[in-house]
């Protein structure tokens, strides 16, 4: 099986065709298996991220044929092209710089929630949102996130935080709004932060896609838009 690996070194993109050797008959390898074998054979210093190999840690996201996939659970086919996530700046090979997304949440999250008895049941939608593995697949095609790169320049503040949000940051804020332990003030702050991060962009967007199947449009975006109307 031949797979194209896109490398990025010293500001230059390059690509290598790697021939994967199956480890057992009929093996249908994952993208991560291909990267690991490439590092073990042809490209010993190939840079890529991975963690749990079990679709839980969210750090091995790459692009397969230009679309974000979680490498440890993305089966590859002959001729596939593996590259760094296209939604974030590449640092080296298949590694992109992720930290601008997290950093934008500084000061936008409560330092603990203290509004209610801890032994109160959370709504089902709250549990649906804790399934987020922070893979950042949802950044793909997001008009709000794209604003950070308008005119070809990246918009970060001094601490490295992106100015505009994305479905992930909205999910973090919506979780606070669904949390029965959060105070009303904390919930109001969450909504204000969603608006400040550019929630408006969602009004004309057909919707986002989650890497692990969370209904982002229904449970996050529409819920926030509806609250913002009031």
């Amino acid at each position: 099986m031949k797979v194209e690996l896109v490398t990025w070194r010293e500001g230059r993109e390059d690509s290598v065709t790697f021939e994967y050797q199956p480890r057992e008959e009929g093996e249908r390898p994952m993208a991560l298996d291909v990267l690991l074998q490439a590092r073990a054979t042809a490209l010993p210093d190939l840079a890529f991220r991975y963690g749990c190999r079990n679709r839980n840690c969210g750090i091995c996201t790459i692009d397969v044929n230009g679309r974000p996939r979680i490498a440890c659970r993305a089966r590859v086919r002959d001729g596939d092209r593996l590259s760094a996530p296209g939604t974030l700046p590449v640092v080296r090979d298949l590694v992109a710089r992720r930290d601008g997304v997290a950093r934008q949440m500084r000061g936008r999250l409560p330092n603990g929630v203290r509004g209610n008895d801890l032994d109160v049941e959370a709504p089902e939608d709250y549990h649906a949102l804790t399934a987020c593995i922070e893979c950042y697949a949802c950044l793909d095609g997001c008009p709000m996130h794209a604003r950070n790169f308008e005119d070809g320049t990246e918009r970060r503040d001094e601490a490295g935080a992106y100015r505009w949000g994305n479905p992930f940051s909205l999910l973090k804020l919506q979780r606070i709004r669904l949390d029965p332990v959060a105070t009303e003030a904390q919930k109001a702050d969450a909504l204000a932060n969603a608006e400040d991060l550019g929630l408006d962009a969602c009004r004309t967007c057909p919707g986002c896609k989650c890497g692990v199947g969370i209904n982002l449009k229904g449970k996050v975006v529409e819920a926030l838009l509806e609250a913002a109307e009031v």
Partner: protein
Amino acid sequence: MSAIETEWRDYDVIVVGSGGAGGAAAHAATEAGARVLVVSKDPIGCSDTKIAEGVTTVRASAEDGDTEAVLSENLRIAGGDLPPPEITRAFAQDTEDAYNWLRRHGVRPRIDQARGTPRTLPIPLGGHAHRRSIGHDNGGLAFGHAAWNAVVQGIDYLEDAWFLDIVTEPGADGPAVRGGIVYDAIRGCFVAVRAPAVIIAAGGLSTLYYPKTDTMRGNTGDSYALALRAGADLVDMEQTQFLPFCLTAPPSYEGLLVGEPATAGFLGVLRDARGKVLLDAVMVRTRAECSAAIVRAVADGRGTERGGCYLDLTGNVKAERSGVYYKNFMETSLAGVMSTVRQALGRKAAAFQEIWEVRPGAHYAMGGARVNEHGSTITDNGADNGAPAVRGLFAAGQAMGGVFGANRLGSTSLAEGPIFGARAGRAAAELARAGNSMADPVFETHLAPYRNMLGHAGSKPASALIRRLQEACWNGIGPARTGDGMDDFMAELSDIRRDADDAAIGPEALWNQSFIDAIELANMLDTAEAVARAAQDRPQSLGAHIRLDGPDASLLFAKTHSVVVRRDADGDWTLSHAARPPTSWRRLLGYAIRDRKRKAALKLLRLLPVAAQDRILEKRYRATMGAIAQPDAEAA
């Protein structure tokens, strides 16, 4: 030599790691008034805590009589009397506080409406005297999010940043922490951080055994190597927990977890390659007992081609009515595991109609930095065996040793992280208040060797040496050990060390993968050597340390000790023993009798006709899980 800038920073406390322990440590130190910097090589919160099954221990959450003394004793007995009592007591005291801290940061259990408290698993996990393990939707993810929230909301951090070494200076009463040095891969610079306190919370060492492990890739033993190089003691390093039930195949799934002893249910058994029962009453056995049964069978030639055995859970669903409860228990308590089984072994296996091929996989390091109950590194200076080892050096979570000794009970590590993280965070903040004088030249001495590594024209890729070491670790210091095997391992280890000096390292400052591989290899070598030296020092099997060529250690009437490993300033290793107070033989006997009774009851149950099993089990399940609708009832 390459041009790489050094950025200077000042803090009170550096926390290495951002998982369950690191997140809590950073937050507690900040709340206590310290200026904190978190340094994490993986993105914030992406840790073993995040990828765990999400089951945590909260004492007295379900049953009265679950006192601090009972939980503390459960830990010590499971741990072969190696855990110091002051540490297990601290654990037992703080489970509720730690859980409430997690809940303040977003962890939400299901609530038992009758009791008005979090709902626990219906069965006590092996070695626990009470039901006190609480499962969560989406496994450990919300625990990972809690660490993320606690750090990201307002604490300074560096991610994609490899913490290279702790900077210390010798003082009148031993070495003292002056700070640390960091390689920031995404900004392409070194960071020299002046700080009087460092908390090591950088996780475990299971990547020594990759791919036969279910944990994060980042577990390259950094915690232990950092502690060793700073001059701290390590304890119980021979005690690596191998979870008994991990997959052998297909290759993409190798090593992943598919169950706990408790999830074997009332009727689950282990079988050898020919189908003969290897171990019954699996449900009430510890992880160590099950792993030992598998590796001993494999060593005897009774294992499968891939070096495993079979976990047979089919008995649990043969009886119709109780089978419904078993399936519900598995799908709700271990949703992550069941999804892995479905993908890797197929639907019939996931319906418990086929047996599963399993092999132990590295999961957790019980050993680690020798600390007191506040996470402060301690040593034995002759007069005082609780004397500070390195002033200002702390460890928490998997990085620390002592909580679990020779075997860790299920659901305890998600509690350990925030319990000892918070303790270390508070203690470090207090120490930092005492002030500290800094000397920059000391940092340059520490940085120079790393600076010189960049652009090193060698002939060996460090990534290949890592794979060689991983294979050697599984064979030599893995779940089945022998004296000869460990001698061979030590020889291979020095070979790899020699080759590591010839590693080819690129000159680039930004995300230098060959440099990252080289520093992780160095950590893996130091940690593997600590494991091997401690393991060689224990000729008998004890807990997770299984010697195929030695007898089992008996706890009755025996003096117990932990093996202590340290390295002096010249790099020479020393080994010593720390005496541990034994549990009284009366208590041990009481436990042994209760244990025998539970096993006998399960053996008997297996001999009963299916209809009788069904009646008994339905009643038992119903008592803890409540009534579950039977499919036939729904159809009617």
